[in-house]
Structures are given as structure tokens and as C-alpha cells.
């Protein structure tokens, strides 16, 4: 019977691992900001209670395409962090731009149908536990 329990234990022990596949390798195309893109909005992240954050966010336009760049960010680790373009400083009406890509600088494509001027906030939000980590209010960099 001891052997049986050992076998069960080993089976479940070996069941905790992960390996990248062709769709999840780091070599997939990563969005970048083109040199000719125009800076439209920028902001600085401020933390919510219990969180530390430093970093900026910029929104660039190239033609009709908008991209959001999080720049030089350092934020407290959290599970399932998402980047939201939001109508308010709480995650109630927003566009989910995807998983937060980690500390440093990263770029997120904004869906074409989004009117960026209606979303004056960028949020970093833990979706799994519904906890807001950081807020950046966007300031327009151009009058038009």
C-alpha cells in the first residue's frame, strides 16, 4: 500500500511544470513604437494602498493606429495584472489591453474602434482578485 501512495504522490508531483510552445515563445512579434509616431497623451502612475509603483505611460498615434507605451515602470508583483484604458480611475468602464508585460518598458496595441479621447486613465489591475494596483491620469500633449 505504501508503494501505491508513493506512486500517486509522484504522479501528482510531476504534474506541475510548463514549457513554451510555438505560440508562446519570446520570439513572437512584440509591438514597438515607430519613430514617426506622434505622442498624444502621457501620464505618471500613482499606486493604490499597499502598492509601490514608479513609471510613466504614453499614448502614441500613427495615422489611425494608437499604441500605449508603459515606460520604465517598477511595480509591486501581483497575479494576473492587466492594463486597462479606462473612463474613470476605477475599473468600471474600460478597454482591456491585455496582460501587463512586466517591469521595464512595454507596448500595447489599442483596438481600432476605441476613441482614445474618451479614456483619460490607464489602470494596472489584478483581474483575478479584483484589486487595483496603479492609476495614471492621461494629459493631452497636443491641442488637436
Amino acid at each position: 500500500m505504501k508503494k501505491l501512495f508513493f506512486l500517486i504522490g509522484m504522479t501528482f508531483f510531476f504534474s506541475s511544470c510548463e514549457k513554451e510552445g510555438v505560440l508562446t515563445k519570446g520570439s513572437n512579434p512584440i509591438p514597438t513604437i515607430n519613430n514617426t509616431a506622434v505622442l498624444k497623451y502621457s501620464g505618471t502612475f500613482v499606486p493604490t494602498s499597499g502598492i509601490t509603483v514608479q513609471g510613466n505611460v504614453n499614448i502614441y498615434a500613427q495615422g489611425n493606429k494608437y499604441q500605449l507605451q508603459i515606460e520604465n515602470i517598477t511595480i509591486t508583483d501581483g497575479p494576473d495584472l492587466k492594463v486597462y484604458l479606462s473612463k474613470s480611475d476605477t475599473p468600471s468602464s474600460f478597454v482591456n489591453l491585455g496582460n501587463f508585460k512586466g517591469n521595464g518598458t512595454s507596448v500595447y496595441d489599442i483596438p481600432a474602434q476605441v476613441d482614445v479621447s474618451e479614456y483619460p486613465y490607464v489602470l494596472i489591475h489584478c483581474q483575478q482578485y479584483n484589486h487595483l494596483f496603479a492609476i495614471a491620469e492621461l494629459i493631452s500633449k497636443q491641442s488637436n
Partner: protein
Amino acid sequence: MKNKLKKALLFSTLFILGYTANAQGCSDAGFCSVGNTFKDAQSEIKNSIEIGGVYGVGEEDVTVFSPYAIYTRIFTNRFAMSAKLTATTANGSFGTISNLGDVFVTGNYKFNTGDYDKSKWSGILGVKIPLTASNDKINNFSLPMPYQSSLGTFDVITGLDLAIKKWEFSTAVQIPLNQNKNSYLSQLAPTDKFDSTNLLERKSDVLFRATYKIKTENQKFIFRPNVLFIYHLGKDSFENVFGQRQTIQNSEGLTINGNLITSYRLSEKNYIEASIATPFVVREVRPDGLTRAFTIGLSYKRNF
């Protein structure tokens, strides 16, 4: 003799390959195998432990291996409880990911313990407790449901079982109590081959199974061909990129599976069991990731 063996192998291979290409279906072993607690239990047996694994061909290029362990305690000739632990390894274009799945705790009560000719009724009540939020990722990529080791929901399972002579009829309902925490959105993913399941809200399922039992004369083999109907009672929904809940059209409906279980008695208290299952009718859209073209299972059971 060799020719017969070759023919049998060829037939088996064609059977498996044929269904691999065409079908989808049931996989949630905890739900699909409800009502098994008392099967062939001898009166002096108080405990049993079973370990096994199920290999399945899932959606797109996903293959899944799900090991499990079940401990059953028979308290009286009417009442037994089981605890089942599952895990899953899924492999496909997103990569390979393994994790624990769910714990199923079920109680089984016999309403009567009649003779062979009389109908025997039993009831089951249980819960499924997820060990993950159904939000596993690889390299920070959210994974679709076929890669998740659990539905990520707390479920209540209840059902009735009727055994009469060589026939057994089971019915059960599985009711999810919460949304899961999956975060897969096809718009943000490197492929559009899987349904969006961000914060998936899954509807209940109703199950009906009819099984016919065949024992060989030497009592060594038991064959249990069965047909399993699962009706998904409503349309599932997910939260889209705009934070709005969106219904997944055509995600309700019927799945019909065929299943053959073969048990072999190694000794008085030791059994091995093999199963093969495949669906014949499937729902049009199945976002929960439970789709299998076919499954093959092998388990070992020891009574003590």
C-alpha cells in the same frame, strides 16, 4: 490466429483514428463517472483506492493526459463517500502545462439493497472544488480553456442511480456556483482558433447514462458498454475587452458519448479497468475546453 489478431488491431486502429478526425465530447471524469461508488463492492470491503489516467485528444492540436486518484470509504451497506483528486497535463501549440485540477467529494446513499431481480436505487450528492482558478499562463500568455486543468468553478453535483438486473441508469446535474478567473481573449491572443473565455460563466449540465453489464463466465472480465447524454442547459458567457458580458452563441445543447469500460479482476481485491470513449453528437460551440475527439483510460483499483 495471427491473422485474427492483425484484423483486431487494424479494426481498433481504424476505429480510433476514425473518431479522432470527426468527433468531440465528454471528458470531465468526475461528473461523467458519477454513481460508481458501490459497483461490485464486496460486503467485507470497507475501503478502496483507485489510481488511473485518461489520455484524450482535444480541440485543435491539444492533447490532454489526466491522472487521478480516488479513495472510497464504505461506511455501511447503504452509505459510502469518495474523494477524488485530479490533475492534467495539456500539450499543444501554446506549449505544455501541467497542474492539479479538482477535488471531488461525493456521498452515495443506497435507498434499498434488494435482490438481483429487484430495482436498486441510490442517490449521490457531492461538490467539485477547483484547485486552480482556470487561469494558467505560459510565458505570460493567457491560455484557453482546453489547456486549463480545472473549470475553475465550485460545483454541486447531485444525481440518482437505478440498477436493475444487467442494466444501470444514472442521471445527475452539475451546477456551477461561480465564474472562473480565466483571462483568455482571442482578440489579444496569437491565434483565433479558441473561444474567448475571459471570466467564463458556465451554465449547468444534466447527465443521463445507460449502461449494460456483461460478465464473463469465469467472472474475470466485466464489460460495461454505455451511452452518455449530457445536456448543457444554457449559453455560457464571458467578459469581452470592453468589460462587458457577452453571451457565447450556440454553446448550449446536447452531447452524446459512447463509452466502453472493461474491468479485469487480477485477484480477489485487485482490479484493472480500461475505457475508451468518443462522442457521436456535440454542441456547436464548446468554450469550456472539455471537448475530446476520444479518450482512453486505464486504472488500477485495490480494495482493502
